């Protein structure tokens, strides 16, 4: 048997979990780019460093986003990946696919690229991994003809994403899919033509379980919630008692201790409930979110670069969200205008609010301060007042 030229990567074909090396080898059988990619990766495994450089802006006509330029730093060894750019393809909201749609995507990518993909990237796009500069426009043209479009990159609105929502989930308090799709279609220009100080992410979760990590990972987080009482089906609560320990697993773990169980009936003190979803998660057949549904809007979430990671902060405790989502979109635009006006290059919204103050932000976008916005009021006495609140000296 011939000696393998990828002995290190071959080790990752072993084991029970599906192997990405098998997929790379599968693509390499019919594609020279994939063949060089696997050889370059083997070299990285040997050298313990990556062999890619960025450099150079590449793209398609009319867009400033959606394509990430990538070049090998060893084109002498791997000429077929000398240029190996990524295309980000905006996924169908909720990552739902018909197979004929997926097959079209595969055919286009076999025609123009390496035959390797990420299903999906972290922000949500379908990632087409690696093509040459002269294939970018032709690939985009074919994608567009087949009904696809590119997602965001750079200092643009990034591809918004949403949880599965009312398509499959009984906990959905808002139509996360429709909101996400509507925002995506409304803001095509912001997605494709970077115009902001830095990236801007929007993620929509239809309940507080936050299946798309909206609070952790987006500048503008939309979380479904409700205002009235949890809906209880007493017979079903009682039925759960034979399967789970309601006192221990439900009541004792309730963060506000707003429920009592007497072995027969569950009493919920709804005024103390903070709608965390724990009891509903455990007894979905017995408990449901209330009927007066809407969303909590938070802003500022981001990963560490530059000034440290932030979780989003509540700015609107409750907003009704129904098409055409005018109130939401007006708020998004007021926020982006203020950020665009005041933000420095590479300054995310959360960092700008930290620098200039939540008080200044709220006034600029026209929101009233309410206790729901904070864990506690300030502890320091460095309090600023607006000039109009201060009595002028009488002359």
């Amino acid at each position: 048997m011939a000696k393998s030229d990828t002995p290190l990567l071959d080790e990752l074909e072993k084991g029970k979990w599906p192997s990405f090396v098998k997929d790379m080898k599968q693509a390499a059988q019919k594609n020279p780019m994939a063949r060089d990619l696997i050889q370059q990766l083997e070299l990285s495994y040997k050298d313990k460093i990556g062999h890619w450089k960025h450099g150079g802006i590449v793209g398609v006509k009319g867009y400033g986003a959606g394509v990430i330029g990538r070049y090998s730093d060893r084109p002498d060894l791997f000429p077929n990946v000398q240029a190996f750019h990524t295309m980000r393809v905006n996924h169908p909201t909720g990552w739902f696919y018909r197979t004929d749609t997926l097959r079209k995507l595969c055919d286009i990518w076999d025609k123009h690229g390496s035959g390797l993909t990420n299903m999906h990237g972290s922000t949500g796009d379908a990632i087409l991994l690696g093509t040459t500069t002269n294939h970018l426009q032709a690939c985009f043209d074919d994608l567009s003809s087949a009904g696809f479009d590119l997602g965001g990159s750079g200092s643009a609105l990034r591809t918004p994403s949403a949880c599965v929502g009312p398509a499959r989930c009984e906990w959905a308090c808002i139509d996360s899919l429709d909101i996400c799709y509507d925002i995506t279609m409304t803001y095509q220009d912001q997605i494709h033509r970077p115009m902001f100080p830095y990236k801007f992410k929007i993620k929509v979760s239809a309940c507080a379980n936050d299946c798309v990590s909206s609070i952790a990972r987006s500048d503008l987080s939309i979380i479904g919630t409700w205002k009235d009482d949890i809906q209880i089906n007493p017979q079903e609560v009682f039925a759960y008692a034979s399967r789970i320990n309601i006192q221990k697993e439900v009541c004792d773990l309730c963060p506000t201790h707003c429920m009592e169980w007497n072995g027969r009936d569950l009493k919920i003190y709804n005024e103390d409930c903070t709608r965390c979803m724990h009891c509903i998660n455990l007894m979905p057949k017995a408990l449901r979110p209330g009927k007066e549904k809407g969303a909590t809007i938070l802003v500022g979430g981001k990963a560490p670069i530059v000034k440290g990671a932030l979780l989003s902060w509540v700015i609107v405790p409750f907003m009704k969200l129904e098409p055409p989502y005018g109130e939401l979109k007006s708020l998004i635009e007021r926020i982006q205008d203020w950020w665009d006006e005041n933000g420095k290059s590479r300054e995310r919204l959360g960092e700008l609010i930290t620098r200039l103050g939540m008080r200044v932000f709220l006034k600029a976008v026209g929101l009233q301060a309410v206790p729901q916005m904070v864990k506690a009021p300030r502890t320091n006495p460095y309090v600023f007042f607006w000039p109009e609140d201060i009595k002028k000296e009488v002359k």
Partner: protein
Amino acid sequence: MAKTDIGPPDYKTMLPPVIQRNYGKWLYHEILKPGVLMHISQSGEALYSIRAGSPRLVSTDHIREICDIAEKYCDGFLRFTSRHNIEFLLDDKNRIEPLIEELKNRGYPVGGTGHSISNIVHTQGWVHCHTPATDASGPVKALMDEIYDYFVTATLPAHVRIALACCLNMCGAVHCSDIAILGIHRTVPKVDNARVPNVCEIPSTVASCPTGAIRGDMKNKSVAVNEEKCMYCGNCYTVCPAMPIADPDNDGISIWVGGKVSNARSAPMFSKLAIPFLPNNPPRWPEVVHAVKNIIEVYATHARKHERIGEWINRVGWERFFSLTGIPFTDQHIDDFDLATETFRTSAQFKWR
């Protein structure tokens, strides 16, 4: 000329008929067994979702195989999850077992539901990124092989969400994961004064630094890096290929624990540093695999039912976490960035171990 700004395909055209009929009408769900969800609608109709693992880096032929399976059992309807799993969507109960059988025969793990370890959210690594401090797909594959059983069962106290980012730019925003695996550089970019004048634009290179650590070096028509200000993000290398940051001897992996994104019970939390540095040891990263598996096993043994890793640690204390896991505590664990003092202990209340 191709049409621009058409947006993604409309999701409504991608939904299976059973979802179109019951959109927004779901009443409750049950996990029938690991990897099998049953959602029941007000109409009485059922939707079954069969969840299977994926390496995320997939070939077009692999996607076509997934399509073949979906056409055979699900009339051609499927979805992907936010953690890169594949979900086959069907309304015929009788097709569940044959589908699972076929998935198993083809090597797809079925699971990732309930109190399991779902797929690891991860980034590009050496496969396709220009600033990675480690590979992404490789450590993920090595680790998932080792903790495979936690994917196909649901025996843990609660969900364990693992994520990997190959540098601190965190394309995979791992900072709120039960266990985060984060590639780190530990040395500043090496400026090649011979190449900088030819391949780099000095002003844009200076401007690329988030911490202002780069200044022009007029004498050499190059740039200089302030070692005290640099935090090794690699953004300068993005605009100036003549200042590579990769360092095979000093790049590696850090491990973070106790984050969560859900609001259930406790508020969302950041992951906190557990292990400051482990070496890159391809192809199977044994030190990383061992360290993560140890944390999972200690957690599985000591946490109460429904407690996420962060909730367990908050109950027993970080002193207990370090003593139970045997992980050494170092001065790297003590924060020295903005607001560091908020993490210092301000009471005489603590445990001895």
